[in-house]
């Protein structure tokens, strides 16, 4: 079941078109990556989804329909532009944030200590936020996003300011939430985190969708069938089915002719007596796809 359905939304601010005809959906039990370079329209899209901004055209269905006051209580949001009341104790700030999400005081009193314990912040609960490190404040904000057990979680750069241990902690928490059937929208520039966490993604730039689909579908779409081999002896100057051979750190990258698959290429190498220490099909990283797609999109725009 889709928790968010974005249908052809557009939004302009003065003469600037921030979002142009964007559509996608986010399902229960998945982590959905909303990716794009800075200023691509991600934040505006999120604000439209959350009913903070009204779209000029198109519509958004969230948790089964238009946004209502009650639905806000079922959404956890960690914006990119975020902060805490610096002169207030962490516990008090989180209590306020939770109460704004409709939690009863008694419920907050039961859940908050458990969350503080889980994020290793129990000893700092009474400290003013300005006395906490950036990482601690970031974990506090993650608690504020999750404490009311939202059905839908929207998090923008959740790993910013976190060390590797806390990054892993937040990743584990997000996976737990997904396993509970929550829908999670994640914005980040850390492609390695997208690769390890996201089930599907949409890539936007200059306010429009450039790419959408599951990680597998995207990898399949952008695969080049190139292989990296380490031969035991020198390679012949030319090989059938191979368009180009290039040296890469003591190995060889082979670019096959159009329509030749990696398995067909392996058969060709073996039948031509090429002995190999290793054979690896090259899959483009999300980083490479991101750069490639954004560059292509810019060319088309120009």
């Amino acid at each position, binding site marked *: 079941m889709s928790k968010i359905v974005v249908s052809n939304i557009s939004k302009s*601010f*003065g003469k*600037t078109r*921030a979002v142009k005809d964007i559509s996608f959906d986010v399902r229960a039990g998945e982590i959905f990556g909303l990716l794009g370079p800075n200023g691509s329209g991600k934040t*505006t899209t999120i*604000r439209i989804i*959350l009913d*903070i*901004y009204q779209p000029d055209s198109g519509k958004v269905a969230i948790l089964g329909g238009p946004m209502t*006051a009650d639905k*806000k*209580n079922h*959404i956890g*949001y960690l*914006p990119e*532009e*975020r*902060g*805490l*009341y*610096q002169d*207030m104790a962490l516990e008090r700030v989180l209590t*306020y*944030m939770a*109460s*704004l*999400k*409709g939690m009863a005081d008694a419920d907050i009193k039961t859940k908050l200590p458990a969350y503080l314990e889980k994020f290793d912040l129990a000893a700092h609960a009474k400290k003013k936020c300005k006395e906490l490190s950036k990482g601690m404040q970031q974990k506090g*904000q993650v608690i*504020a996003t999750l404490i009311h057990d939202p059905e839908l979680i929207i998090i923008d750069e959740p790993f910013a300011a976190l060390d590797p241990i806390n990054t892993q902690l937040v990743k584990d928490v997000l996976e737990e939430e997904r396993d509970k059937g929550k829908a999670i929208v994640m914005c980040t520039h850390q492609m390695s985190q997208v690769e390890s966490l996201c089930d599907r993604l949409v890539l936007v730039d200059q306010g429009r969708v450039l790419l959408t689909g599951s990680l597998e579908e995207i990898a399949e779409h952008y695969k080049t069938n190139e292989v990296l081999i380490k031969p035991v002896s020198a390679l012949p100057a030319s090989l059938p089915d191979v368009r180009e051979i290039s040296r890469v750190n003591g190995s060889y990258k082979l670019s096959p002719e159009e329509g030749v698959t990696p398995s067909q290429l392996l058969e060709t190498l073996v039948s031509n007596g090429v002995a190999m220490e290793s054979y690896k099909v090259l899959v483009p990283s999300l980083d490479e796809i991101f750069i490639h797609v954004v560059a292509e999109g810019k060319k088309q725009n120009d």
Partner: protein
Amino acid sequence: MRKIWRVFKYEFMSVVSRRSFILGLILVPLLPTIIIGLVSLLKPKDSPDLVKTIVKEVSTTKPYGVVDESGLINDYPNWAMGQLIPFEDESSARQETQAGNLDGFYVVSADYLETGDVLLVKPEVSMVAEMAYNATFEELIRYNLVNGNDELYAKLVNHVKVTTEYLDIEQADTRDQKDPSTFMVPFFISFFFYMLVIINSSLMLDSVTKEKENRTMEILLSSAEPVDIFGGKILARGLASLLQTVVWLATILLLAKLSNLTLHLPFKLEIPTAVFTWGIPYFLLGFLLYGSLMAGLGAMVPNTREGGQFSLIMNMPLILAYLALSEFVTNPNSAVTLFLSLFPLTSTIVMPTRLVIGAVPIWQLIVALLLLVLAVWLVVRGAANLFSSQNLLSGQKFNLKTFFSTLLFGKKSQKA
């Protein structure tokens, strides 16, 4: 349930649990009360009052000499003897002064009746004694101007007894013009209300701009409607400032009564209880008016610094009213005063001040209050429009035209 009460609860507790608020609420009224209370407790029952003490001090000083070159002063009445001593010539008076037997001497010029010139010669500055002796000397001159006729002199000093009958008692300025408290108390009350409204509405501005700066605003907006955030804030801060005003006003009334009982001031401090009963609704509505303006301003400015700069423009009517203070204190029934009393942006400080000055016609009190309520309703609606997500999350530069068009006509900004 609407989130307004949750915002209200948090904001109210944030304000009243702040150390500066608690200290201000308790210490500001407590310290002067303790001081006056201690003076009252420690003072012996038969101790002289302030005026008597000054008179006594003056009477222990040395007399002044009088050299009359005009031939006017022929009689020295009993009340002047001992304080003023006649001398034949200036040199003998100077000699006595230098010898330390006199505190100084007056020389009445030969052409006094034409010029009124009198020279006072004294060895050192002694303001209090000089004031007292000048008064006695002036009376001596008056006494001799009527040739020492006690009956005429009595009529002269008692002036003319005028009894005033006012056709419209409500318009009457029945104040004693010689009483220092006649002007001092209105100035104080005016300043009190001016500061209360300015400070509390500025704190409202500060609260909104800080939430923009510390980047909690977007989190709040994802949880509650802008109007709930605005409503919760203005009500919480209104209640907190009302609490402060009630405590401080009650203390002022109490201190005025205590001062009259214990300090024996040369005047009586009178603060009508109407200042309390009418002043509180005027203050509360004034805060809602200016607090809403400040909240709207806070929503539109990108940071606290810019908010501070533009708050001066918003506060301008209050500042102008305060600058016009002498007009409505001295002429409480003038047309300018009436306008300032009824105009909603100034009535919040002018009307409570007029209540100290004297009787204000009840129709003016009611009309001003109704106009204030109407203005609050309009401004709160306008400020709620300004308090939109787009304004709160944008970093756009403040635009006065957009501000007032949205405030007055409800056109929402479309810039990001």
